[in-house]
C-alpha cells in the first residue's frame, strides 16, 4: 500500500474532473472513495463522494448517489462543524427525488425522508420551494394526482431561493406536470422558451425534447416532433441517465412508423434497462418497448436480429428473436414491475397505465425520418 494515498486520491479526482459525466468518470470517483475509506480519511472520503454523487446522479446510477449521500449526511451529523450539513442540501434534492424510483423503498421511508429534509432545510435557512417540487413530482410518480396538485400549488406560491432548482429545470418540470394531466397545448406553450433555446442547463433541453414528443404528435405537429427527436437523441444517446425518456422515444418511433430506427434504439439501450437498479427508468423504457414491439410485429417483421448482452432475459446466442415473443417477454416484465410499484404505492396507477397504453395507437402518423444520420 502506498503511503502517499492522498496524492493518489487527488490525482484520481483531477483525472475525473477532466472527463464529462460518464461511467469512466464514475469509476475513477468510486476508486477515490475506496482509497479514502481504506485509509479512513473522512475528509477526502467526503470530497470524493461529493463529486461521485453528482456524477452518479447524472449518469443514471441513483443507487450509488444514495449510498454515498447517506454516508455524507451521517458524517455531517457526527461532526457538524467539520462537515456542515447545509452543503449537502443541494444534492439532497437529487437523492430524495430518486427514492420513488426504487419500489423496494417504502412510502413511509419516502415520507420520512421528506420530513427529514424539511427539518434540515429549515436549519440551513432554505425555503420549502424545492421540497414542494419534489413532493409533487413524487406524488405524480406514485399515482396521486390530488396530492400532486396540492403541492404544485404550494410550490407555485413559494418564492424561489438559493436552493431552488434552476429556472430551466423548473420550467421543464412544469411542462412534465401539464403533460401528465393531458394539458398538451399548455405544456407546449410552457416548453417554448426551452425549445427556442433561451433556457437551458445541464439536462435541459434534452429532457424537454423527450417530454414534448408525444404531445406534439397528438397536436398534429409531427414534423416539429421529428426535429426535437433528432436533436434530443443526438444530445442524450450516450447517457444512461436519459433511459427514462427513451421509452417515449420508442413510442414516438412506433407512432411515426420508424421501425428500423426504433429497433436500433431498443437494441442499443436495452442493456441499460436490464442493468440499472433504477427500476422506474427501467419501467419507462420497457413501457415504450411494450408499445413499440407489437407495431413492429404488425408491420411484418416477425423476426429481429439483435445483439443483446448476455444478462438480457431471454438472451439468445444466435441473436435471433421472434418479435412477438420478445414483445410478450417485455409485456410480462412490465406487469411484474407494475405490480411491485403498485404494491408499494398502495394503488393501481401503474396497472392502469398498462391498460390505457394501447389507446395511444390512434395518434399514429407515419412520418419517415431520414436514415443514417446522427446516431440513427
Amino acid at each position, binding site marked *: *500500500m502506498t503511503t502517499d494515498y492522498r496524492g493518489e486520491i487527488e490525482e484520481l479526482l483531477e483525472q475525473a*474532473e*477532466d*472527463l*464529462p459525466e*460518464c461511467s*469512466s468518470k464514475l*469509476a*475513477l470517483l*468510486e*476508486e477515490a*472513495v*475506496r*482509497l*479514502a*475509506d*481504506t485509509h*479512513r480519511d473522512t475528509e477526502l472520503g467526503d470530497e470524493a463522494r461529493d463529486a461521485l454523487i453528482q456524477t452518479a446522479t447524472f449518469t443514471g446510477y441513483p*443507487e*450509488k448517489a*444514495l*449510498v*454515498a449521500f*447517506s*454516508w455524507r*449526511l*451521517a*458524517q455531517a*451529523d*457526527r461532526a457538524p462543524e467539520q462537515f456542515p450539513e447545509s452543503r449537502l442540501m443541494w444534492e439532497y434534492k437529487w437523492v430524495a427525488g430518486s*427514492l420513488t424510483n*426504487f419500489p*423496494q*423503498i*417504502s412510502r413511509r*421511508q419516502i415520507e*420520512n*425522508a421528506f420530513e*427529514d429534509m424539511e427539518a434540515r432545510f429549515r436549519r440551513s435557512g432554505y425555503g420549502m420551494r424545492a421540497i414542494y417540487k419534489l413532493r409533487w413530482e413524487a406524488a405524480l410518480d406514485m399515482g396521486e394526482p390530488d396530492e400532486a396538485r396540492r403541492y404544485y400549488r404550494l410550490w407555485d406560491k413559494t418564492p424561489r431561493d438559493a436552493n431552488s432548482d434552476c429556472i430551466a429545470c423548473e420550467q421543464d418540470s412544469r411542462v412534465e406536470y401539464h403533460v401528465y394531466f393531458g394539458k398538451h397545448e399548455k405544456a407546449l406553450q410552457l416548453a417554448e422558451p426551452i425549445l*427556442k*433555446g433561451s433556457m437551458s442547463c445541464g439536462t435541459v433541453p434534452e429532457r424537454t425534447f423527450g417530454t414534448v414528443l408525444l404531445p406534439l404528435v397528438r397536436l398534429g405537429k409531427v414534423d416539429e416532433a421529428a426535429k426535437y427527436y*433528432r*436533436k434530443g437523441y443526438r444530445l442524450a444517446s450516450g447517457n444512461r441517465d436519459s433511459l427514462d425518456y427513451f421509452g417515449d422515444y420508442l413510442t414516438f418511433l412506433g407512432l411515426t412508423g420508424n421501425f428500423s430506427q426504433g429497433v436500433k434504439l431498443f437494441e442499443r439501450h436495452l442493456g441499460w434497462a436490464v442493468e440499472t437498479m433504477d427500476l422506474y427508468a427501467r419501467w419507462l423504457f420497457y413501457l415504450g418497448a411494450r408499445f413499440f414491439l407489437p407495431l413492429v410485429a404488425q408491420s411484418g417483421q416477425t423476426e429481429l436480429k439483435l*445483439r443483446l448482452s448476455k444478462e438480457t432475459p431471454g438472451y439468445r446466442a444466435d441473436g435471433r428473436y421472434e418479435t412477438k415473443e420478445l414483445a410478450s417477454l417485455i409485456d410480462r416484465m412490465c406487469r411484474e414491475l407494475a405490480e411491485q410499484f403498485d404494491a408499494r404505492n398502495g394503488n393501481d396507477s401503474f396497472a392502469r397505465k398498462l391498460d390505457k397504453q394501447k389507446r395511444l395507437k390512434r395518434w399514429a402518423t407515419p412520418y419517415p425520418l*431520414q436514415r443514417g*444520420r*446522427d446516431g440513427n
Partner: protein
Amino acid sequence: MDYKFQINLRGIIELLSNHLYSGPEVFLRELLQNGVDAIRARQNLEPDHRGEITLEVLGGRGGKTPTLVFTDNGIGLTEDEIHRFLATIGQSSKNAEFWERPSDFIGQFGIGLLSCFVVSEEIVVITRSAAPSLPDGKEGRTKGLEWRGKPNGTYTIKVIERDLEPGTQVYLTCKKGCEEHFEVERLVERATHFGGLLPYPIRLISGNSSRPINAEGPPWRRRGGSEKARRAALLEYGRKTFDVDFFDAIPLHSSVGEVEGVAFVLPFSPSLATKRTHRVYLKHMLLSESAEDLVPDWAFFVKCVVNANDLRPTASRESFYEDDKLASTREALGQCLREYLFDLAKNHPDRLQQFIALHHLSIKALAVSDDEFYRLFIDWMPFETTLGDMTLGEYRKEYPVIRYVAHLDQFRQIARVAAAQDLCVLNGAYTYNAELLEKFSEVFPDEQVEEVDPAGLTQSFEDLSLEEREEMFALLKSADLVLQPFKCSAEIKKFLPHELPALFSTNADAGFLRSAEQSREICDALWSSVLDNLTAKHGSDVYAQLCFNYGNPLVRKLAQLRDRNLLRRSIEMLYVQALLLGHHPLSAREMALLNEGLLGLIEWGLNATASQPSPPERGRGQGEGGTR
C-alpha cells in the same frame, strides 16, 4: 418632410439588448454586413462591379467628437426602400422569425443600422441607388438621399442635388462614453476580427494613413506552392489567430453547406469535459468564435476555422442552426478528418505515433462507432494491462485471446495475481476501452474476446487433488463458518505468487453491497432502513470470495492447526489482509476484527514466549506466524 418611426419601442430595446449580449462593438459587424450585402446586391445587376469598403475616422483629436464614416459602393437605397427598412424595424418585435435573419437585404439593413444607436446619438445615411430608374420615373429616385435618424424615433429625408456615386455612406457621431469604439487601433482590430476574410477590399483611413484590413483573404484559399508550404502557411495562420503552435493543419471542405476551412490539430490532450468550439464565418463574415457541433463528437482533437456559404445561423448567431444540412456537413467534415487519419496511418506511421500519444481518445471514440476505422486503428491503441502498458497490436502478437476486465477495482484486484502467473489482462475501465474490446469480436468474428470476471479468475486456478482437498477440508469448513457473517465464501486453489496466502474477489454487485455497508453502519435509523431496503433485492446469493492459496506455506500450516481459536483468528486476519491488498475499505466490523486480531495474536505470542526459558533472538525467528 418629417416622419415618425413606426416602432414598437419595446422591440428595439429587446433587439439592442440581444445584440449587446456580445458587446457594443457588434455595430461594426452590422455595418460590414450591410456593406457586403449591398455590394453583393449590386453585383447581381453588374457582375463586373468591384466592391470596396472604406472606414474613415474624422476628428477625435484635441477633444473634438470623433465621427466614423462607413462607405460602401454597393447598391444604395431608393426612397421607397428607406421607408421599407424602417417598416421592417417596426415589425421586428412582432415577428419571431425575424431573429433568424431574413435574406431580405433591405430589412437586414435597417436592423443593422439600428445597432449603431448603441454608440451614436444620431445616424446619418447618404445613399444613392444604383438600380435603374423604374418606369414611372419618379423624381429623386436616381438622386442622392440624406436620411437623418435619432433614437427618439424621429427622422428626416432630403434629396441631395449634387451628383453622387452609387453606394451608401453611414456617419456615426461618437456618443459620450463610447470613445473607445472610435479609436483607430480598436477599429482596425475589430474590423479585422469580423471582416478579415471578406472578399472585397476594406480600408481604414485616418488622417493621411490608409490601412488594408483584409489584404490576405482566407488562408485555405491560397493556391500555389508545395503542399508543405501550404501546410506551413496554415499553421502560421493558426499561430497568429489562436497563439498556439498546432500539431498539424487539415484542410476541410464540404459541398453540402458550401464549407471550406481548416482544422488545427491540438498540440495537447484536450479535456473531454469541455465542448470544443470553433471559429466560423458565414459568407466570409465572422459569425462566432465559439460555435459547437460543427464536427462530429469524436473529433475533440481539433480547433476549426471555417467559412460556410450555405448554412443557417442560429437566432443568437452563436452557431449554425441544427438541421439536416448541418448534419450532412458535419459528416463531410468528419470524413476529411477521417481521411487525414487514414493517410497518417498509411504514409506517416511516425507521425501517427505522435498523434496517438496526444489524441488516442479521439481515435477510440471514432473507432467505437466506425468499423472500417476500427479495423485499421485498433492495433495502434494503447491499453493498460496486468503486464504493463502496451498497444493492442503488441498484445495480440503475444496472446491469442483478448482478456479484459471492465472495472477499475476489478483490475486492481486481479493485477497482482494475474501478473504473477504471466496472465496478461487488459484494463477496460478507462474511457471507451470496454466498448472497444467488446466490439472486437464483432469486427473480427474469428477472434476470441473474454471478459474476465475476477471471481471467475479464481476458477481458472488449478484445482486441488482429492488428497489435498482432504488435507484442507477442516480449514475450508472453518473459513466458511468464520466468513459467513461477512457474506463471503471460502475456496482453496493453487496459484501464483506463492507468497500470497489468499485472494479476495468480488463482482460489481458484491462491491456495491460493500459500499452500502460502509454507509449503513454510520447512518441514522431513517437512512439505514432505506439502505436496507435498497439492497434487500440483492438477496444472499451475492457472495464475495476468499480464495486460499494451497501453494502458500502458511496456509498449509493453518490446515494442520488444532487450536480452534487460533484458527478462527488466523482466518479472520487473512481475510482482512486480503481486503487491504485489494484496496477494499474495511467496514467497522472488519476493522474490529483487525484490532482484536492483532491484540489477540500479540497476547498469544507473549504467552507463548513467557512459557519458554528464553525468547527467541531477533533475526533468527521461526518463520511465519510464530509456530510452536
